């Protein structure tokens, strides 16, 4: 295994681990549910994507296997993270959680609570 591939894998791993840690710190520290929702759905998804791509590069370099599993997990997580964020925010709106005072466009909350799914 050449040095360049090792450095690439290490840089991807460090970026991914730092993004995972930042996402979890944001989940623990931010003041409001709707701000807390930002941290895991953006930073954590980016971090897990970096770690999976690092693993794919390492396996392809050491064992000459092009494994598609990691790519599948990455695509699956990138698709499902916005869906879970949307469903969680809808559940939070349904439960009328408290919103930070500095939140802009607060008059839209009542409209979003009353919205119905489209009729078939």
């Amino acid at each position, binding site marked *: 295994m050449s040095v360049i591939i*090792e450095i690439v*894998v*290490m840089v991807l*791993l*460090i970026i*991914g*681990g*730092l993004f*995972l*840690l930042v*996402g*979890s*710190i944001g*989940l*623990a520290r931010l003041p409001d*549910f709707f701000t*807390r*929702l930002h941290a*895991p759905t953006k930073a*954590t*998804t980016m*971090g*897990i994507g970096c*770690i*999976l791509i*690092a*693993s794919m590069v*390492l*396996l392809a370099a*050491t*064992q000459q*296997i092009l*494994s598609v*599993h*990691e790519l*599948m*997990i990455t695509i*699956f*997580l990138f698709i*499902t993270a916005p*869906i*879970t964020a949307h*469903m*969680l925010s*809808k*559940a*939070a709106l*349904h*439960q009328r*959680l408290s919103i930070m005072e500095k939140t802009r466009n607060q008059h839209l909350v009542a409209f979003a609570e009353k919205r119905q799914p489209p009729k078939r």
Partner: protein
Amino acid sequence: MLNFTIIIICVLVCIALLLNTWRLFEGPSMPDRILALDTMFINSIALIVLMGMYMGSPLYFEGALLIAMLGFVSTAAVCTYLLRGDIIK
């Protein structure tokens, strides 16, 4: 050098899991706890992938894929329960 980096990243992910656990027990409302569980699923996927890299075997990714699918399905099911009061209509 690579193994050392993998161990350092494992420590970072374990700290992230501890923060998620704190939010899971502390969280003032139900969606907070669901969000903490979802983040814990993602962090455990990262731990399993790091273990697979450390051992140098491609066998662990089936487990990671299973955890990803279970995480999405369980989060969607609990959110539907919070929204409607039942899971399957």
